[in-house]
């Protein structure tokens, strides 16, 4: 009997071909890593990619956690040794739970408390646990941000790098409201003006509190922040309820709140900050934390003077 039939040679050929491509691709993405995180058409892919980057960024001292509001802050606006785990379409509790998955959490975690109607995605958090992603941890080719389509798209179009370059040039500009943003803002106001189930918000805030408390217990300095929103949003029931619930669940006597004023800011849609405003808000958060904790000033790569 022949040990290798044409069948088995064919199968072995496929296996070798797969192995060769796999090794080559791992080498490629390791030698030429993407500088910026590419955009993903799917929210969960974007979360995964963001978390994979965070879990690989060992020297993270400051971590911003939140929803798309946090994600809207360009990476280049963050101080050195910091990371933004913003989950577009998601909630802060998921981001904080993800932050806690690392064996050595960051020294400072800033928690965005603007959205409380969304539930924690426990299934997603569980799937990101190291024991469920052995292959992703070991082989870069398995990481979401290295998926061939997004990787080559980024290499050929340099889309994310161009956007980042634009952001750097926008950072020190003067924020001003554009007329076309008014339409998006009125849509946001319309979307948030309805009766919200307060009990859902209370429940979600309590879940967030559990994860925040877990981080505090591990010696992390946690700061809660409500990202500034357009004055029109202050009037809607959703925002009022978020303020009410969050202040009850996280009393300022027990938790560090950072109050960021909304002077000279502009928003695409009333809640998501445009770039130069995002830069100002991050600087103000940094100033407040430095002032409260007495730690050295944050080291920003962009310098626009005082905001």
């Amino acid at each position: 009997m022949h040990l290798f039939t044409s069948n088995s040679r064919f199968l072995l050929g496929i296996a070798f071909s797969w192995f060769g491509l796999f090794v080559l691709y791992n080498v490629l993405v390791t030698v030429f890593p993407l500088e910026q995180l590419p955009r993903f058409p799917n929210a969960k892919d974007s979360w995964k990619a963001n978390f994979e980057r965070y879990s690989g960024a060992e020297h993270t001292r400051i971590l911003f956690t939140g929803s798309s509001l946090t994600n809207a802050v360009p990476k280049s606006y963050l101080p050195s040794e910091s990371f933004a785990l913003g989950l577009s379409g998601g909630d802060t509790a998921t981001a904080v739970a993800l932050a806690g998955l690392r064996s050595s959490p960051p020294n400072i975690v800033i928690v965005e408390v603007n959205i409380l109607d969304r539930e924690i995605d426990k299934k997603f958090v569980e799937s990101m646990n190291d024991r469920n992603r052995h292959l992703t941890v070991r082989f870069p080719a398995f990481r979401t941000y290295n998926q061939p389509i997004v990787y080559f798209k980024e290499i050929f179009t340099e889309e994310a790098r161009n956007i980042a370059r634009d952001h750097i040039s926008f950072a020190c500009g003067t924020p001003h409201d554009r007329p076309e943003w008014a339409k998006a803002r009125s849509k946001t106001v319309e979307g948030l003006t309805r009766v919200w189930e307060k009990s859902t918000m209370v429940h979600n805030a309590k879940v967030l509190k559990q994860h925040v408390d877990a981080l505090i217990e591990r010696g992390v300095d946690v700061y809660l922040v409500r990202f500034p929103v357009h004055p029109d949003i202050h009037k809607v029931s959703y925002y009022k309820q978020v303020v009410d619930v969050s202040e009850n669940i996280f009393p300022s006597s027990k938790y560090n709140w950072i109050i960021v004023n909304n002077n000279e800011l502009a928003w695409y849609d009333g809640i998501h900050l445009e770039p130069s405003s995002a830069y100002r808000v991050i600087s103000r958060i940094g100033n407040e934390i430095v002032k409260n904790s007495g730690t050295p000033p944050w080291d920003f790569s962009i310098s626009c003077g005082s905001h």
Partner: protein
Amino acid sequence: VHFISLNYLVLVGLLLSFYYLPVFRRAQVYMLIVGSLVFYGTGQLHLLPLLTVAALSAGMLAWALKSHIRHSILLAIGVASYLSILAFFKYKFIPIFDVENYANSLDGPLRFMLLLPLPIGISFYTFQSISLIVDSHKKKYANILNSEPNRFVFIKNCFFYIVFFPQLVAGPIVKAHDFLPQIKPKYFSDVNLRLASQTIISGLFFKSVIADNLNVYTLNMEQIASKGNGNTLDAAVLLFVYSAQIYSDFFGYTLLAIGVAALFGYRLPENFNIPYIAQSISEFWRRWHISLSSFLREYLYYPLGGNRLGEIRTYLNLIVVMALGGLWHGAAMSYMFWGLFHGIGLALERPFLKSFFFRSQYPLMILLRTLTVFSFVSFAWIFFRFPEFDDVLSYLGVLISSAPDERGLLNSVDLFIIGALCFPVFVQHFFVKFEMELNTTFQIMIYGTMLFLFTVQRGPTDAFIYFQF
């Protein structure tokens, strides 16, 4: 119940590790029956008795029909019973009245039955049961069905034919006279491993890499339908993208089913034959979901008279068969409209099939016909994509005219990625159409690449579109 999962891999691996051992040769069918029931039970354990009873009854009815009472009334009762089961479970969800509220006001078994979810694969296993009892009644299949004289073995084989797990939940619909003769002891040396692995790898690639990644973009169709976002170009592009997605999804699934069945020595029918090169709607239906169209032709169109009862009756038969075929997919009017749309298309093109437009062999005319049919089919997918008819109308609204200042949902990078994902569908049609042969080394590289992409570029969703039927 999922084909691309560790559980499924373990099930297939476990069965294969014992299946070909000489000591288990006589137990091969039992092993596959147990494996199939485990497979189904992991998805819907509480509906396993329904499947078991349906499959056993079909076997017993087939035995009665072929052995003793080759009686039309018994046949009619059998077919009607299976159609009733299908109708009950599938169409109780038609929103004519609130089933849940009604059920809650009742007691006893009816309440229990009304509250049961749609059994997975019911459309497929009831059709196979019908095929079994109809074939048992037909004299032309007597040789095949009489080859097994033992009642117990016959019923066991029939049971196995209906529950065989690779094709249980979404086909291909196998006809009894094609499957039953295949039930015999299997030997590993007879398995074409090369063909089975090529089929499985292609299936994984089409399903997980192409369909699941395209799904990310076609989700925008919901935004168009529900919120009116996007513009006419988005709506048109996404319709064509959905054509590629649904083909890759169902074609990929079918390849997996065929490949896994081949590992156990069974041949399932081909379900697709590069459908998007069809030059007429009738040709499309000879290439798309072949097992369903052939089932409808054999068990519905011909019994209704086919094309033997004059032109008008032929058109009517086509429309009725296609409308019922549409309704088979689900309890929603839009599925019926999808079938009707195709039925009317078939009836309208029929008188012109011998005209210059359909017979000309000029390349430009061939291209024109192919594009016309592809556009027709893609347009019809709107009804398929949106079970709610209001959504269909909203989508059509955007497709016909969108607000001039409405921002597009797809940017140039999205279009580039969509193009890259649809490219293999185009290449596959092209290669098969021109019967292009590749040498072995090149084939190995292609299958290696497909497997590599399956491991690193799987799409975020994993639901099979046809599992809902």
